[in-house]
């Protein structure tokens, strides 16, 4: 622990910019740094990404370790691990943070083990207590929270998307850019991506969606579901339906949620124009947040919801769609 100091954030690139998750992790790192008086470092890996270093500084990094190498153009487990080992050797951080993303999930457990430590994944917060890192994360399907501290150094963690706020971008911030030679051996990178497939317009599988917009008998018609489809699209989610809606032929049976349909547990579940019978609620009770929109104030669904709007859905959806689009932008 003695030689290591600093909070290293493994930054991700999305398109030609810094991924927003990385700005959030930087924000968390900055807050940790302020608590502990340690510098915030960032690792920027990729090919032709050097120009983004200044953005990382603008979002809170004091030092950016850039590993620019054609072999890092696409993410690979072996390649990125090797590169980060090098960065770690130079930066010698006490804490390593990353986002809970496709890359983070894959990379962090191995990186932590490689450095003789272990990782706390999908954390909601990371704080310093008595100079040591403490991470809080959900477990048991969200029913419980675990608070972990680290026996070994560096302490490694991933942060859940939207759990932390980024700093205000400040282009006048000063920082150091350090180039690190990856020294990668192409032959040592064992995993190779041979094809890439974007998800089709149909959308995400209902069971996998983080956001589900479900409608019931109250929608009234197949056409009525168009509003739900738009909301789902805006939030990157999927459309679901109650048995009544499927029976009426408004939605395909594959979208039926309930006891004899799909069981889903998304982060966000919109229950629109459905009364909340137990047959249906059995299919969505695992949702983290249920939002009910129903014109009947006595509808049972409100008892299971965290938020509700008592209104005819048709009157609410346009404004809700706009507001959600703004949030996601």
């Amino acid at each position: 622990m003695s030689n290591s100091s600093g909070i290293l954030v493994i930054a991700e690139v999305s398109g030609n910019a810094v991924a927003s998750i990385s700005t959030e992790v930087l924000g968390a790192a900055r807050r940790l740094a302020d608590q502990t008086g340690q510098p915030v470092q960032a690792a920027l890996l990729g090919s032709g990404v050097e120009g983004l270093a200044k953005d990382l500084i603008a979002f809170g990094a004091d030092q950016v370790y850039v590993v620019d190498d054609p072999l890092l153009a696409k993410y690979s487990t072996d390649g990125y691990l090797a590169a980060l080992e090098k960065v770690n050797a130079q930066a010698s951080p006490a804490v390593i943070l990353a986002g809970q993303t496709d890359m983070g999930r894959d990379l962090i457990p191995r990186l932590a083990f490689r450095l003789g430590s272990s990782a706390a994944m999908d954390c909601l917060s990371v704080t310093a207590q008595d100079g040591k890192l403490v991470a809080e994360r959900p477990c048991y399907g969200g029913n419980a929270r675990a608070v972990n501290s680290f026996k070994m150094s560096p302490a490694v963690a991933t942060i859940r998307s939207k759990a932390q706020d980024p700093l205000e971008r400040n282009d006048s911030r000063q920082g150091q850019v350090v180039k690190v030679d990856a020294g990668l051996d192409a032959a040592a990178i064992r995993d190779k991506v041979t094809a890439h497939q974007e998800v089709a317009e149909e959308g995400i599988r209902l069971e996998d969606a983080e956001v589900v917009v479900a409608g019931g008998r109250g929608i009234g018609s197949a056409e009525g579901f168009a509003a739900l489809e738009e909301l789902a699209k805006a939030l990157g989610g999927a459309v679901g339906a109650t048995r009544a809606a499927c029976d009426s032929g408004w939605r395909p049976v594959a979208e039926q949620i309930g006891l004899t349909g799909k069981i889903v547990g998304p982060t966000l579940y919109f229950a629109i124009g459905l009364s909340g019978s137990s047959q249906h609620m059995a299919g969505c009770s695992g949702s983290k947040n249920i939002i009910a929109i129903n014109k009947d104030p006595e509808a049972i669904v409100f008892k299971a919801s965290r938020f509700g709007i008592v209104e005819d859905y048709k009157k609410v959806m346009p404004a809700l769609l706009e507001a959600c689009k703004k949030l996601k932008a």
Partner: protein
Amino acid sequence: MPLHIIACVKQVPDPEAPASAFKVDEAAKKVTPAAGVASVVSQFDALAVEAALRVKDVASDAKITIVSMGPAAARDAIKHSLAMGADEGVLLTDNAFENGDSYTTALVLSKAIQKIGDFDLLLFGRQATDWDAGVVGSGVAEILGLPSVSIAKAVAVQDGKVVVERVLMEGYDTVEAPLPCAVTISNELGEPRYPKLQQIMQAARKQVSVWSAADLGLDASQVGAQGVRLNLERLYQPVSEVECEVMEGETPDEKAQKLAQRLREEKII
């Protein structure tokens, strides 16, 4: 040489048990086992077994070994997997294994896998549905120095390498890696198969070895509570809001905007 696949499974308390049955004993830092809550094979682990079986559907002489670390009751998780069509099981059980973390679990599994030896493919669920960590699968690969691919929706073996469809936020990648390799499986793989009765009955006759820490060459200081790299400082239940917050507003538009604002505040969107 026939393919040898090792799939690791964990037995967990039923994640779909009624929320009212879920209680945390904060003093013991454990979940109180509730009466009437069944123990099931962790959802993604069952899919790992299914993935192994799908490989075997193609390479019919492949052998599948199931490994599970847990109390004696974890034997049921192994038997269920044997009923689905796996060939052999290994139960790793020892008081010394208790109260460990992802690292100690990965260490124990790695030693067992090394002891079994001669494997081509290691399959894991992407995370266990109790701790939800998602560390063990990749961790075992790291300890054993193997390539790994995580969050798979399809696994196939071709000419000494594994071809994996890896799930991404916006689609999927096709990734190839040489054998031996570790892969963690995600729910996009589909549904685990329902065993035929004959297979269930035959499972009773399949071999399940039982190994302790000593059998793996590990002593208590390396595993369980003594070997952890992550300390559990606290385990608690967040107070759930049962009250439904109804949005107030003069107009429907206002209510909608209020809702969006609240969702933002609660960091849900």
